């Protein structure tokens, strides 16, 4: 019993983005066995200790707990708070279900229960029926009716329906009255079932819905993505994951080989016995990143997300210089230093957005401003569609940049098949880049940043 309840509760928690491992689920079962269901507040505190492991998780946990243990028929025992709590399902059922005395007369099992004042028994049966028909699997809102009907069926609704029809067609006055009573009782039961299903749907569908949404956000085109509200959160989440992964790698790369010379010197202290070993420390090369973003209307969405991404992995790559260009070119690093990255990006778009991109001029401007800052630790990333409005491409400048710095990456929001079509000069630039990649969605961006960080932290 306890395992099942906890199992379902954990499912609800996962739906609310609290990650719970099987081991923690077992802990939760132990805690419930220890504390019992009597003291709701104690149970909440106890479960919160084993299931929610960050401040954010605790908040989500509190919400889920209040939701879940209201439905599961665990009575809120604390007597003084009982009056303020929303009525439990059983109580609501008790109010809704008719309580006629002397239910003799109805022949179907369900009819007898409805007429007898046994709503507690009924609500138990309803929960059991819900389990039988697999209400846990409800995913889509349109399935509510289906599951409601199935639960009624499992409760014995068909026999009841037939009985009502039979009673209606009967000649006897008494029978007709009984039929009317049964009908209203059945309608109220239906209503209760519908409400139960709706509640369960809200609890269960969260998890699946979130996964679907995440998947969709990752694969949606960047241009349409900007309209979504919580996409920023998603980007930050992806960036955090990458930062954690590569932050660790950076530290590991620091541990070097045995430094034979210094170990021998140190050993002199101990009469030639190498008592303490000295490790050769690999010098960490601090990578520098320069990002040049085309912010003209056609590709600005991609620029927005790339910048968001790069500034979110700040822990791993602390030194990022960013440049924006459309009709004119300029450095925007200082904006990011003074504002939150979201604000900064909006500001950049306001100042630099325009049309008529000239990539050749951009390369010349960039070299003019930063040539002396380029060195073998610098990675240059250019994001743009390379649609040059039939102006000279000046690819030799890109070649020059490539020789001065460690590597050049080109990100193109257009699909590979469209590179070089129309006024795109992508094919001219491509040979001078270490790699050129399409990035039309978050998944592509994530792949690129992942690869970039791996490359930067290896050295």
């Amino acid at each position, binding site marked *: 019993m306890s395992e099942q309840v906890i199992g379902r509760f954990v499912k609800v928690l996962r739906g609310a983005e609290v*990650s719970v491992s099987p081991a923690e689920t077992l802990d939760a079962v132990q*805690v419930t066995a*220890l504390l019992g269901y009597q003291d709701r*507040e*104690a149970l909440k505190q*106890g479960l919160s*200790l*084993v299931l929610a*492991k960050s401040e954010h998780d605790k908040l989500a946990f509190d919400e889920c707990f209040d939701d879940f243990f209201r439905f599961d028929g665990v009575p809120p025992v604390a007597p003084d708070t009982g009056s303020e709590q929303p009525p439990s399902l059983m109580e609501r059922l008790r109010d809704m279900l008719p309580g006629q005395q002397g239910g003799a007369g109805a022949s179907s099992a369900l009819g007898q229960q409805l007429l007898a004042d046994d709503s507690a028994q009924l609500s138990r049966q309803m929960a059991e029926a819900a389990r039988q028909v697999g209400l846990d699997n409800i995913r889509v809102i349109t399935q509510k009716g289906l599951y409601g009907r199935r639960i009624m069926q499992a409760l014995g609704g068909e026999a009841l329906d037939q009985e009502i029809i039979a009673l209606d067609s009967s000649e006897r006055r008494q029978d007709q009255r009984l039929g009317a009573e049964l009908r209203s009782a059945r309608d109220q039961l239906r209503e209760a079932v519908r409400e139960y299903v709706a509640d369960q749907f809200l609890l269960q569908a969260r998890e699946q819905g979130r996964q679907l949404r995440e998947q969709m956000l990752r694969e949606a085109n960047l241009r349409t993505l900007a309209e979504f509200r919580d996409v920023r959160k998603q980007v930050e989440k992806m960036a955090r994951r990458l930062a954690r992964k590569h932050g660790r790698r950076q530290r590991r790369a620091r541990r070097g080989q045995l430094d034979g010379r210094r170990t021998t010197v140190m050993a002199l202290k101990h009469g030639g016995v190498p008592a*303490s070993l000295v490790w050769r420390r690999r010098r960490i090369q601090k990578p520098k990143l320069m990002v040049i973003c085309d912010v003209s209307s056609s590709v600005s969405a991609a620029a927005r997300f790339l910048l968001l991404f790069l500034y979110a992995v700040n822990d791993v790559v602390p030194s990022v210089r960013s440049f924006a260009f459309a009709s004119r070119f300029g450095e925007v690093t200082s904006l990011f230093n003074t504002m939150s990255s979201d604000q900064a990006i909006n500001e950049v778009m306001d100042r630099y957005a325009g049309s008529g991109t000239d990539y050749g001029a951009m390369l010349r401007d960039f070299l003019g401003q930063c040539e002396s800052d380029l060195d073998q630790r610098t990675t240059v990333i250019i994001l743009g569609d390379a649609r040059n409005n039939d102006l000279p491409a000046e690819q030799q400048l890109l070649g020059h940049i490539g020789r001065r710095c460690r590597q050049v990456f080109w990100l193109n929001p257009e699909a590979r098949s469209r590179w070089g079509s129309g006024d795109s000069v992508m094919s001219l630039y491509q040979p001078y880049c270490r790699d050129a990649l399409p990035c039309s969605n978050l998944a592509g961006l994530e792949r690129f940043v992942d690869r970039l960080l791996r490359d930067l932290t290896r050295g």
Partner: protein
Amino acid sequence: MKTRILSVAEVRDSFARHGYVCNDRIAMAVYLAAQLRKPVLVEGPPGVGKTELAKASAAFLEAPLIRLQCYEGLDEARALYEWKYGKQLLYTQLLREQLGGRLEGAQGLAESMARLGDLGDAFYSETFLEPRPLLQALRADESPVLLIDEVDKADQEFEAFLLELLSDYQISIPELGTVKARHEPLVFLTSNNSRELSDALKRRCLHLYIPYPDAALEQQIIAARVPEASQALRKQLVDFVQRLRTLDLKKQPAISESIDWARALLLLHVESLDPVLVDSTLNLLLKHEEDVRQVRDDLPSLLK
């Protein structure tokens, strides 16, 4: 060590007797940790009594407290055990003649090696082992309370190294094999959240978050720690501190700071707060010049 804890209330009341006033949530964590034999990871802003909790638990359980303070670069040698290199060297020097005697008459290299091999273990034995806090906790004669303080300051590698200890109460030492705890310790880990701890670590622990206390609890705490302060002053003081915490400060005043402040006010024979006095003692509560300046400007409205 006390082995039977009857209820959460017992923990809470006993803590209160030892001067550690806490709510049910904290007492529940100690109760469950003792019942389930699981470590507790305590998080929360600095100065809310995370370290105190471990000390109070040790006092309550009548168990010795073993403390390991973490810092960047902490390694196994500092946390677990070290060989006493100096002593080993000294012994080899002193025993040189003995060794010479043993090797006397050995035929060829192989036999010498074999004879030396027989005694090799002597130099890696208990005599030369320097136990550090973690090993001390595992080999203690009675079940201790082990406090691993500010685990977030240690490196990720060290965190991973702790996992074996936390889940099985044992540690593998290459030269000695696996050391299992004689008596399972009650482990507290504290973290100031200076970095995110790994999921693997969190999974093995109960997770307790201690926020700043509400006004009622803070008054109780101050009553317990500074009993000489009058009720009226206590209330005024707590109200003021609680109001400070709603401001956007660089570092908010914690419980330890309110206690210090209460003690200072007592020394100054203060009966009630007034702006001049608060102004001159503000740096007991606030540890950043900017915060002091900001609060000083709003003092009249904050003291209302």
